[in-house]
């Protein structure tokens, strides 16, 4: 375990199954959490599809379930509201009680938020890694 809790930020820019980026990101997040690091994940661009409810891949690891597990292990997971709106996830204005933009199409583990929350992650993390950006 690390002495003082350092934080790793992870940005996912690719969808859950077309490339292996989401799988790689989740595995790195799990390893970091098990070693005692803080983990903050931001879903951006097509990466917001990783938040979709009811994923059921036959031949791949279920990314939706993996994100839920990471959230239960302590990872903070947010997604971009602009990208989520473009892809049909956002269903209303920001809900203070839910602390997110509401979406019945997104798993509970992911909070739809403004891009400013990603800028805060960049500022506050010790290291940042990007998946699917290039």
């Amino acid at each position, binding site marked *: 375990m690390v002495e003082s809790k350092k934080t790793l930020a992870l*940005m996912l*820019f690719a969808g859950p199954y077309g490339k292996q980026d989401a799988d790689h990101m989740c595995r790195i997040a799990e390893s970091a959490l098990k070693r005692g690091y803080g983990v903050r994940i931001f879903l*951006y*661009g*097509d990466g917001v599809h990783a938040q979709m409810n009811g994923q059921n891949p036959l031949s791949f690891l279920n990314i939706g379930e993996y994100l839920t597990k990471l959230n239960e292990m302590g990872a903070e997971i947010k997604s971009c509201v*602009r*990208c989520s709106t473009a892809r049909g996830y956002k269903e209303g204005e920001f809900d203070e009680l839910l602390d997110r933009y509401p979406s019945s199409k997104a798993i509970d583990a992911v909070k739809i938020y403004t*891009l*400013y929350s*990603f*800028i*805060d992650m*960049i*500022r506050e*993390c010790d290291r*940042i890694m*990007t998946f699917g*950006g*290039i």
Partner: protein
Amino acid sequence: MLNLVIEITHPPYGHENTFAGLYVALTSLAKGMNVTVILHGDGIYTGLKGHLDPEKHINVISTEKQIEDILEMGGTVIAYRDAMIHRGVEHGELIKGIEVNESAELYDLIIEKTDKIIAF
């Protein structure tokens, strides 16, 4: 102040990467960060000036306008000289205000003067 580098490796409109990366740069500037955008690889094409009204013709936000906004907000935009040479792009063809750097200058920037890097 946090020094952030946004690396753009895609041309302007075929992928969402460039718009999304420049959008993060703009938002970071609005939140008070020191932002440098590096155009690298095919990202060099994003630096070309004279885009003909992409909002009207292909319904996407002009990345040229985004770069002009970044410069206006105090951000720095750097094109990597070797990537320009490989693609036959000259400094005069780039959006006004874009600087051109050699490898050594970029390494110095990334190793000595940058806190975080995000690649698109």
